[in-house]
């Protein structure tokens, strides 16, 4: 409650709770309000959210100051320059401005994180929900598939698929901008290798939620299977899915950085935070600005998303007593 507790009125025995008329008349808090109250108290989550807002502003607001041409313009006369007034973050091995590239690379990295997460959620929820709801043979089949995916190291799978599809998709023009087709490949590849954990979470949720009386009651009013799944079970399972999806964004950004660092990720001319690190390892000591800025941005973003995910996990848990 925002209001400070009232001083006990004179004459009332100490220790007896005093309710203000206001408090008595306040309607009970809704689920959303309770969640927000718990989230608000999670300092790291608030820090993460604010940092993320800045990241998005940085990546998308930066477009107002630098054009994409700035990010891709090479200037061989100004190779490997340390940060100066003209190039605040320095220049890279072929003289491109690192500040401009982190802005445009940030857009791609964030978009890859979000869309790969969407692919992951789509597949993971689809498979987990079918396995958990229908059970039986379908469940066994889908769960064996999920386990098969889980035993293969994800990074290995990523590299193989990325290499297999590399350069098979031409560049795309969207809204007047050219994107390397490899962006789509990376989104797809990260999406189809990340879903197994989510599928297991969703399956477990479905298994427990579907046993509730209200599901039986809904069936008794003639609700179809589709409505039972999407209108009754899914909304009751949403909290862990939101948390897993949030953490999935961070994982996707990291994975993109991995494969791009290894040279199998997003191809030039499109910049990402990940592929800016490619080649930087040759200059770890001599040109620290090459890896420091994109590396910091990745670390800060991933850290913030993880804090946000933690905060959501606590806030969305109805059993959490913290208010």
């Amino acid at each position, binding site marked *: 409650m925002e209001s400070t507790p009232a001083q006990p009125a004179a004459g009332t025995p100490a220790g007896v709770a005093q309710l203000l008329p206001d408090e008595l008349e306040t309607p*009970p808090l809704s689920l959303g309000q309770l969640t927000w109250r718990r989230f608000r108290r999670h300092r790291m989550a608030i820090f993460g959210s604010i940092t993320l807002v800045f990241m998005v502003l940085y990546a998308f607001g930066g477009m107002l100051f630098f054009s994409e041409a700035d990010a891709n313009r090479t200037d061989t006369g100004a190779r490997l320059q340390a940060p100066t007034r003209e190039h605040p973050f320095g220049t890279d091995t072929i003289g491109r401005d690192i500040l401009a590239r982190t802005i445009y690379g940030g857009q791609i990295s964030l978009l890859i994180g979000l869309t790969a997460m969407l692919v992951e959620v789509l597949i993971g929820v689809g498979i987990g929900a079918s396995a958990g709801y229908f059970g039986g043979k379908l469940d066994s089949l889908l769960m064996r598939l999920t386990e098969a995916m889980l035993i293969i190291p994800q990074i290995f799978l990523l590299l193989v698929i990325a290499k297999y599809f590399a350069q098979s998709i031409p560049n795309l023009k969207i809204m007047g901008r050219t994107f390397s087709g490899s962006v789509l490949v990376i989104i797809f590849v990260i999406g189809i290798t990340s879903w197994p954990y989510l599928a297991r979470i969703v399956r477990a949720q479905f298994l427990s939620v579907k046993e509730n009386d*209200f599901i039986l009651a809904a069936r008794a009013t003639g609700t179809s299977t589709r409505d039972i799944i999407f209108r009754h079970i899914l909304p009751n399972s949403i909290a862990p899915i939101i948390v897993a999806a949030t953490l999935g964004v961070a994982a996707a950004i990291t994975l993109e950085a991995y494969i791009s660092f290894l040279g199998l990720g997003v191809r030039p001319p499109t910049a990402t935070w990940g592929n800016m690190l490619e080649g930087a390892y040759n200059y770890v000591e001599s040109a620290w600005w090459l890896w420091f800025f994109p590396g910091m941005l990745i670390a800060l973003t991933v850290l913030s998303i993880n804090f946000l995910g933690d905060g959501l996990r606590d806030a969305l848990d109805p059993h959490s007593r913290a208010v």
Partner: protein
Amino acid sequence: MPSTPTAEPYKRESPFMNPERILEINDLRTRFHIAEGTVYAVNGVSFHLNHGETIAVVGESGCGKSVTMMSIMRLIPIPPGEIASGEVLYDGHDLLKITESEMEHLRGKDIAMIFQDPMTALNPVLTIGRQLAEPLRIHLGLDREKIRERSIELLEQVGIADPAQRLGEYPHQFSGGMRQRAMIAMSLACSPSILIADEPTTALDVTIQAQIVELVQRIRQQVNMSVIWITHDLGVVAEMAERVIVMYAGFIVEEAGVDNLYEDPRHPYTQALLAALPRVDKRRDKRLQSIPGAPPNLLVAPKGCPFVQRCQFAFDHCREEMPPLISVGLNHQAACWLDVTSGETR
């Protein structure tokens, strides 16, 4: 019966039904195949429900009351459940033979059900309004405006104050009695012809119980609905039912008009059950009577009368063969080899 199959799903067969009857159950047997073996939950149950009638199904926990009703509604999970045999005749077709989507159309529209625990039978993340709208949307295809009108009307009908405001609230903002009222409103949404109430008052306190019983009674008369009321509260039965079915271990052991049953119980189990009731007009310094022993293990295939181990009148024939329901008077049947009033065996 003509053997030519027809395309219309509802005219596939038209078993004969007495026109007075709205629902007729014949020889229903439901089993569950679990790791420990087979649970014989319902063992050849037959009864009927007339138009506008209220019947009560009584019996102790685990005697198959709920499983019978769930079998009628086809809400038994299969597997592990299995409806081994039987017919559920409603409106000229056998509900056990129609397709699942035909059954979905029937549930909530023709036959509605309310459950024991209103605390868990409402979806916690949907507002009351959205849950109330569901049957209206599914079965009647009403638009938003109409749904809202009808929802308010329904909440008013079940005695919830300030219905327009209440529609936007969540189940946790409702008290137990109000939730049960909301459940009843949901089940009445499409004016069903049969309402199955599965112990709807068990989880509520006594004053609320009385209100709910009265509410269902009033609505039943208003909309001419037939009601099957499952309970183990014999007080509620006396208050509202016209006919009573007594179940034991998956069998119907006695069926009678409500007055007959209380005044002249003809099955040893019913007699013991009634004797176990606390009475206001009897001495209270004695212990309540109880029935010795425990109900039989449902994992064993039934043979003979299920009550035989606890029955003071049991003799050899009881162990060998399950007695059929034998007419013992006008609209009064009991499944016992002994005529308990005269002491003659049959």
